[in-house]
């Protein structure tokens, strides 16, 4: 499976008294087939469709549910996509994955968890809101999404028409998590797996052993604005929260769930949360180039006072963690650029060297300033690409979902869908294309 950071070897640091110890048992499959039993045999995930549909139909708000499969290289397009989730479950606790949805309120990030690699649950079905996207399993479009390399179980969900968009999103979110959990649970018997250890030393150990290395904090901004722009932390709506410090293991173990219909290219799907590349890379370099001392979950609220309050709190948390360097990633674009600027400015003014990761909205021709807000302190900027650049993707043999919805997706136009089935749209319509955790190698350069 294509995860660009997979070359990294996670190493256990052999010192006691660490904060959290997570063993991630990674079962990697490279194929997906229907079968009588849902299980992993060899390198294939077999799924029993009828059984799964029975399991998922239990919610009475669901009018109709179906699943379909899409494999890497197939001439298949999935549209409109809401969220993407990697199958996960806990083998031994405490707690369970996706706390607040699947698990209870116990802290996650310790014990043993199972990750089904090479597979993703893709939630789709009738559109909830404009800011959904598509995934192409081959062709030009497949280069711009990580989910063309996963064997996808597409969950097509139709809810009762009486539901509001907010209720609709909630049902889709919960059912997607349920299916991801179900698939992981059924894979527990797989014999072949690789174990990755995630373990950070305590501040005292850092002081004694690694004080010569700079301390890095990751400031992980997530959209929290209501009106279908929400993120959930331990099941709690982030817009009702202050910024919060989390151990990176909690995030890798499912503490953060996406509930948002932010433009597909720049949204953090649940898959991105579970496989956050900044966290993974900081882990890979921990004790070698740097000390990874924690993650601050920042909010992106919809009021200026909220943005200022959050950025002030983020700064204080980062200072308390003793950071020398902060990496900030944004979610979405437009008004969240102000959150990015405020956080960067506050941190730099406190002497913390700060790098930001963000996309650009530089217009179809690449000639427009790409940020809605700027600040001179933001002098170390990593670009994840121009979300407005035009891309033409070829026709596919099979469409999972509703092809015509491109006309109303963010990045699409009324005439995006061509007669031959190709699509001409902006990069932002492709799920994960300009994701601002820096998941892909895509980025802008001057020409």
């Amino acid at each position, binding site marked *: 499976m294509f995860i660009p950071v997979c070359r990294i070897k996670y190493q256990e640091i052999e010192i006691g008294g660490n904060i959290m110890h997570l063993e991630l048992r990674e079962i990697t499959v490279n194929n997906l087939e229907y079968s009588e039993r849902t299980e992993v045999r060899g390198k294939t995930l077999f799924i029993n469709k009828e059984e799964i549909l029975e399991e998922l139909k239990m919610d009475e708000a669901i009018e109709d549910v179906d699943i379909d499969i899409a494999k890497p290289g197939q001439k298949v397009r999935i549209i409109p996509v809401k969220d993407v989730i990697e199958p996960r479950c806990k083998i031994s606790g405490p707690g369970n994955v996706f706390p607040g949805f699947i698990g209870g309120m116990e802290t996650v990030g310790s014990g043993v968890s199972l990750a089904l690699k090479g597979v993703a649950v893709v939630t789709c079905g009738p559109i909830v809101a404009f800011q959904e996207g598509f995934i192409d399993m081959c062709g030009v479009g497949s280069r711009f999404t990580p989910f063309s390399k996963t064997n996808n179980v597409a969950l097509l969900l139709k809810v009762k028409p009486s539901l509001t968009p907010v209720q609709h999103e909630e049902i889709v979110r919960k059912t997607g998590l349920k299916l991801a959990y179900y698939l992981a649970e059924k894979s527990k018997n797989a014999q072949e797996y690789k174990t990755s250890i995630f373990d950070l030393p305590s501040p005292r150990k850092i002081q004694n052993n690694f004080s010569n290395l700079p301390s890095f904090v990751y400031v992980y901004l997530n959209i929290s604005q209501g009106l279908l722009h929400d993120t959930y932390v331990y099941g709690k709506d982030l817009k009702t929260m202050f910024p919060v410090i989390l151990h990176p293991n909690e995030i890798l173990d499912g503490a953060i769930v996406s509930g948002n219909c932010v433009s597909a290219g720049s949204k953090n799907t649940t898959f991105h949360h579970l496989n956050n590349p900044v966290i993974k890379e900081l882990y890979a370099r921990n004790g070698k180039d740097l000390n990874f001392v924690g993650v601050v979950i920042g909010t992106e609220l919809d009021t200026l006072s909220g943005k200022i309050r959050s950025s002030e709190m983020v700064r204080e948390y980062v200072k308390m963690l003793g950071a020398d360097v902060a990496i900030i990633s944004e979610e979405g674009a437009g008004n969240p650029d102000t959150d990015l600027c405020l956080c960067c400015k506050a941190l730099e003014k406190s002497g913390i060297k700060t790098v930001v990761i963000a996309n650009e909205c530089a217009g179809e021709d690449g000639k427009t300033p790409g940020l809605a807000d700027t600040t001179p302190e933001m002098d170390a900027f990593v670009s994840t690409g121009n979300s*407005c650049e035009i891309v033409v993707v070829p026709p596919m043999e099979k469409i999972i979902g509703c092809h015509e919805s491109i006309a109303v*997706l963010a990045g699409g136009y009324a005439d995006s869908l061509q007669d031959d089935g190709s699509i001409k749209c902006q990069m932002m319509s492709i799920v994960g294309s300009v994701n601002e955790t820096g998941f892909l190698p895509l980025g802008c350069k001057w020409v």
Partner: protein
Amino acid sequence: MKKRIVYYLNQFYGGIGGEDKADTKPFFLNEAVGPAVKFSELIDQEGEVVGTIVCGDNFYSSNMEEARKNCLEFLKALKPDFFVAGPAFNAGRYGIACGDICAFVEKGLNIPTITGMYDENPGVPLYREHTIIVKVANNARGMNEALRKMSTLALKIMKNQELFSAEDEGYFHRNIRKNFFYDEIGAVRAIEMGLKKYRGEYFKTELEMPKFDKIPPARAVGPLNECKVALCTSGGIVPKGNPDRLPVSASDRWGKWDVSNIEKLTPENAESIHGGYDRTYANLDPNRVIPVDVLKDLEKEGIIKKLHPYIYYTVGTSTSVNNAERFGREIGVELKNAGVDIIILTST
């Protein structure tokens, strides 16, 4: 078949003389001369220089219109596929002539053009967006290197090969952002940049901070009851059915709607098509986004003198700054001509 290339040189490189010949009008030689000879050798596999236009630097800068016209006449007969000028190194007048004639030819004949200049040449900021200006040394000692760089890039363009970034190709970028695949993912690049920044080592940001215009707030206007007020929104409220076919995001247009004959916006006559928020509440009562109802009341009560008959609407989400500026100018002119004193701009 080889591509037909026409070359442009000033009086000095064209071999007719120095400053004393700087007033020479453009003339045409049906062969490669001066730097064009070497250039022609370098691109031999793909093209040939079919002629050279020579023009005095003073003549070009003092008679731009005429110089362009003269050059165009030569070019029309020659039907070139490609046009090259210079390199001008750090020569100001020559740089401006090279940049201007390249820009003019590129636009007028719709063929690719290339020139070369030093970083501080005044032609760089003037013409970088309109032609490819290769980065060269500040004087003619760098001629061979300059021609090598210009010809390498010219060959790529003639072969229709995709160009890498301006930095990789060695030209002054045209103020255009383009997507590329870097060697490393963004997260890795960010952490490496953080380490360099911490250690005080050189690092290169991937986007220099743009500078936006600071617009001072308008001065307060006179008593409200003497003011004509207009409403304008980026909140995506449109007449029901979206007759202007406004996109749901990254808008390239704005619309206006005569609301003088309706009492207020309703779910029957208006809707939100904005792609950046849940429209449930906006669609229940579109006045929540653009308060036509309240402004009509204020007009009736005499608190404002008049509500401008048209409301103006677009979608703000992901709309480029350049487009937004254009909308502002276009709507602004219209409102100014209509004698509007106050514009209430609502966003979402």
